[in-house]
């Protein structure tokens, strides 16, 4: 296999090797697996595309995301070769112009790739969608997300303070990957909503600044839950309405029980989105300072009424995704970066050829 990356011959035990890699600036600060030739070749075999095939260039350094370079980062992150198609597919999705990777990587905002996986591959790779799916404990979740973030550092130059101006960044920049509990969701899976077949494997990428919890154990009906979510989102107005940007999508990650309560109340996903839109249309003027109100009114006059300011311009700016373990009634809400749109892409499969033309950067 013709690999072109520079080889570094390192002496010493694992501590010394990691120390060298850390000092070279190749890591996220956590230990990594040394990307030896044998490991990188095995990773490339996990998809079977040519090592020199480029998915595109990652901003802001605009390094070529070749299969070889992505495989090196996937090895370092601890991926198994069978995870590699998900890593490559995630990079493809992040390079969709609608996602606006340049801004996500460089902004002062903590916006970070959040990867959401649908399809049978969730079971094949054991990608967690239940208890603790956004947290530690699952190799696929932990290392796929980490591989993508290491690629942003090593290929894209997302170096804190240099290539990214994120004021605080966030823990999701280590890794953020989970799946949908399609079997327990009362609605069609997210990728089916986006026009894919249920048996297709997809990755969906968003760019949240963070994620907060909305727990409503007192609620007994679906509408009850939605009313409280909408109420809580009034407080999000100040941070989600970016007058200088477009209008991004807001991921609402619902536990299966909340989703089922809504379905029992007759809420389809679409109806739930419409409810959230209708009930966040009049955030009181008192939630904002005078200068912010003036700035918002200039850029988004259509979102002003005599009763207040609308959080969203359309119902489909709310994305609904069903994940998380049973037993506690929690829904998560992700604030948005504004100038980014959610992208869903079919994942490549091992053995199928790469796209005919390398996408222009």
């Amino acid at each position, binding site marked *: 296999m013709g690999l072109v990356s520079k080889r570094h011959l390192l002496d010493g035990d694992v501590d010394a090797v990691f120390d060298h890699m850390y000092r070279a600036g190749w890591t996220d600060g956590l230990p990594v697996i040394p990307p030896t030739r044998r490991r990188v070749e095995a990773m490339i075999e996990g998809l079977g595309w040519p090592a020199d095939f480029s998915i595109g260039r990652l901003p802001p350094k*605009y390094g070529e995301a070749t299969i070889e370079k992505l495989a090196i980062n996937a090895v370092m992150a601890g991926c198994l070769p069978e995870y590699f198609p998900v890593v490559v597919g995630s990079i493809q999705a992040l390079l969709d112009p609608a996602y606006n990777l340049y801004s996500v990587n460089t902004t002062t905002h903590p916006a970070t790739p959040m990867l959401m996986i649908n399809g049978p591959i969730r079971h094949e790779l054991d990608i967690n969608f239940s208890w603790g799916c956004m947290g530690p404990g699952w190799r696929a979740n932990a290392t796929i997300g980490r591989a993508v973030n290491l690629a942003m550092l090593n290929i894209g130059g997302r170096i804190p303070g240099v290539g990214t*101006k994120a004021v605080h960044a966030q823990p999701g920049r280590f890794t953020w990957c989970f799946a949908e509990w399609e079997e327990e969701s009362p609605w069609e899976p997210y990728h089916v909503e986006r026009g894919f077949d249920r048996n297709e494997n997809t990755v969906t990428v968003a760019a949240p600044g963070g994620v907060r919890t909305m727990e409503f154990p007192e609620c007994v009906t679906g509408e009850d839950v939605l009313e409280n979510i909408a109420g809580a989102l009034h407080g999000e107005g100040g941070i989600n309405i970016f007058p200088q940007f477009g209008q991004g999508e807001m991921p609402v990650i619902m536990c299966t029980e909340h989703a089922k309560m809504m379905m029992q109340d007759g809420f389809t996903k679409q109806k739930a989105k419409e409810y959230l839109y209708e009930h966040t249309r009049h955030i009181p003027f008192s939630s904002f300072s005078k200068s912010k109100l003036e700035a918002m009114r200039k850029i988004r006059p259509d979102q002003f009424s005599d009763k207040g300011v609308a959080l969203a311009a359309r119902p489909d700016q709310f994305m609904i995704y069903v994940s998380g373990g049973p037993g506690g009634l929690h829904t998560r809400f992700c604030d948005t970066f504004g100038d980014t749109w959610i992208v869903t892409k079919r994942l490549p499969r091992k053995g199928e050829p790469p796209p005919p033309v390398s996408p222009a950067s």
Partner: protein
Amino acid sequence: MDRGRPTALLVSQSFQSLARMLMKARGYPDAPFVVIPHPFESLPEETIRRIAREKVTEIIAAVSEQPLHQPA
């Protein structure tokens, strides 16, 4: 710049390192910058006009290919 036209690059103080990385990626590692204060977007118009008046000589120098500011 890609079209061969004289260009002045205005960069706010905090974004110099990012701008340098970008220009290097675009093939202009030595492009001269005119550095303006940061943050910029929230300044009142009056202040922005004052900054423009202060920087106009440097901007003219940049487009005239006589950079006063060399990259660090």
